[in-house]
């Protein structure tokens, strides 16, 4: 799955012909060279804290070392390392040539990952980092490059600080969504997170859950797995838990304007989760009287999914069944640049999908959900 492009491909922009409403990539990962990139927007106190203790995720390793080592360094495409040095997607000019121009991306949504301070054990540090990462997005990426949109990074374990950060960015057209990681310390529908969703709905911003993060709990509900391949599989289960929690806690009943976008979570599992919720809700309604509608209806109305990584059935048409069950208007295109499992827009969608469906997935659906 590792992608290495030949130079000839880079010369010819590779926008798929079906992308007549534009090509919107909802998952690009800009990366800081290191903490120093954020220094201009960190107070002296937090800069010094960052030097002495650094980010402390809810697992034991330091220095950004993940508990499950990636399949390759930084999980990045080998050809995404800028020739001038630095890490993949740390250099705007290289990203322009290697990705935006090469693939004809009209709008790219940035989802900054670590070091972003999200999910840090220290709420104060997490809030300081979120502010700095958002300022860094504006200064380094969004103002210089009109094709890019940012995500409001929030210190989601501190809902009040998150809501404040969202309100600070409300109305700034550079930002198109609020970003959380899929592994939160408690299920995402828990009332402790509601101020985040209230502020996002108020600002008219969808809330994106990007696969990743560390909840502090075992990565499965039956304990810690052993392998990276399992961790990748468990991104799907954690997102299933989050959808279930958001629905069952009644978040969407409370905030009818809230939109949730699942990024890099896969999507083929969503119909089964909805069916399961419907089926057992019918028997357990009395426990959750705040749920007035069938969970599948709520999911259909409030949840969007993104393509990469698309599940890969043995029989291609099975994927179409699932996409139809989710709703063709709910699927957004994503590349996951610069990661190793990047999807090339020209090859990602099954050619058997009708042209107007591909058009909507490539661009139309994202334009509508983000109001681009």
């Amino acid at each position, binding site marked *: 799955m590792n992608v290495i492009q030949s130079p000839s491909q880079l010369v010819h922009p590779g926008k798929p012909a079906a992308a007549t409403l534009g090509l919107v990539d909802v998952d690009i990962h800009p990366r800081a060279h290191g903490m120093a990139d954020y220094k201009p927007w960190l107070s002296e106190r937090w800069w010094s804290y960052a030097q002495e203790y650094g980010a402390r995720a809810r697992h034991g390793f330091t220095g950004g070392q993940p508990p499950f080592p990636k*399949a390759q360094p930084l999980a990045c495409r080998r050809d995404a390392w800028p020739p001038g040095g630095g890490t993949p997607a740390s250099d705007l000019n290289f990203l322009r040539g290697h990705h935006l121009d090469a693939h004809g991306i009209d709008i790219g949504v940035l989802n900054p990952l670590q070091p972003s301070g999200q999910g840090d054990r220290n709420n104060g540090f997490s809030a300081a980092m979120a502010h700095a990462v958002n300022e860094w997005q504006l200064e380094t990426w969004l103002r210089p490059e009109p094709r890019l949109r940012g995500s409001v990074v929030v210190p989601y374990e501190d809902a009040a600080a998150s809501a404040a950060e969202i309100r600070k960015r409300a109305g700034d057209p550079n930002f198109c969504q609020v970003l959380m990681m*899929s592994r*939160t*310390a*408690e*299920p995402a529908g*828990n009332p402790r997170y509601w101020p985040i969703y209230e502020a996002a709905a108020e600002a008219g911003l969808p809330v994106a859950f990007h696969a990743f993060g560390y*909840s502090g*709990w*075992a990565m*499965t*509900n*039956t*304990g*810690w*797995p*052993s*392998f*990276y*391949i*399992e961790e*990748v*599989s*468990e991104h*799907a*289960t*954690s997102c*299933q*838990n*989050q959808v*279930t*929690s958001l629905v*069952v*806690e009644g978040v969407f009943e409370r905030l009818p304007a809230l939109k949730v976008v699942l990024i890099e979570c*896969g999507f*083929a*599992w969503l119909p*089964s*989760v909805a*069916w*399961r*919720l*419907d*089926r*057992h*809700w019918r*028997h*357990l309604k009395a*426990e*959750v009287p705040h749920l007035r509608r069938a969970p599948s209806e709520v999911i259909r109305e409030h949840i969007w999914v993104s393509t990469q*990584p698309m*599940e*890969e*059935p*043995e*029989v291609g048409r*099975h994927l179409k*069944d699932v996409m139809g*069950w989710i709703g063709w208007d709910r699927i957004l295109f994503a590349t996951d640049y610069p990661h190793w*499992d990047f999807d090339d827009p020209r090859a990602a969608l099954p050619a058997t999908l009708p042209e107007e469906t591909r058009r909507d997935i490539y661009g139309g659906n994202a334009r509508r959900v983000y109001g681009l």
Partner: protein
Amino acid sequence: MPEAIRAIDCDVHPMVLSMSALAPYLDEFWRDQVVERGITQLDGQSWPVNAPKTIRADWRNAAGRGADTVEALRAQALEPFGADLAILNPLYGVQMVLNADMAVAFTRALNDWTRAEWLDRDPRLRASIVLPLQDIGAAVDEIERLAPDRRFVQALVLAMGDAPLGKRQFWPVYEACVRHGLPLGVHAGSAYRHPQTSVGWTSWYLEEYVANQQAFQSQLASLITEGALGKFPEMKVVLLESGVTWLPAFLWRLGKTWKGVRFEVPWVDRPPAELVRDQVRLTVQPFDAPEDDPGAVERILDHLRSEDMLLWASDWPHWQFDGDAAVPPGFPASLLSKLLRDNALATYSRLRGEEGSP
């Protein structure tokens, strides 16, 4: 239920009313501990006794309990659904016990209770050997102790335990299963060593019940990637009360990731979907499909790409369906013989051709 097919009910749950029911099967020391320490019951939050899911309303007795006698099983499940064999999967909370010695004592008592109070009272009954995974050696001993009684047809663990089931520490259990022709049954429910989700404790029982679906995915991922299925190709794994319809999407994702990073688990030398079709079976109550869309059921069955994987179960006394609608709607008539009987015979070697078998 088609009358011509003698169905095999692969998942029914006898319920233990209280610890005093197990007292006759405990030795003197543990019988004394139970009394002296006030251990009155082991009911778990996976199955709150009074919750509507745990016992179907019309299957409760005047005391509000149910599933506590062979007579009730006969009248409510065996006879109305025409089953000539049923597999008992006791769900009493022995897996939650933290003291391994206590867990082993209580689990042995539970298995002896099942044998004396149920198996001995109706020749149509078979049972699972509940395993005390708190002590792997003791779990193997329990298989060795009970396997000579061929009415025990499976070893039983919960979907949410201490560690994922593929881990090598569990392999002696699988060796014992293979030695005795016992499938490994994995049933919904938790030993509460971890929250019900990888993102923490859920607020509502509905969420908790749904989260079993994630546990089954994690367990299968572990059994596949650790190499347990590959190491024990004769072993069948039966997923009980899993909901079923999550399986295709799970395999599509795992299969794709395996293509990308299989260097990490080089012993997995076949696509996960193939391993699963060969070795994994699932009971169909519940079957989490849209109830008003038979076309969807047909497509889900197509996505499974096998007619051999699904086993019928009533899941008595859990409330999964009303009246006698024990076969999920939408299953084609051509599949019923396999679903209701043939697949179970192919899965459980002890149901085939030996003494006391059909």
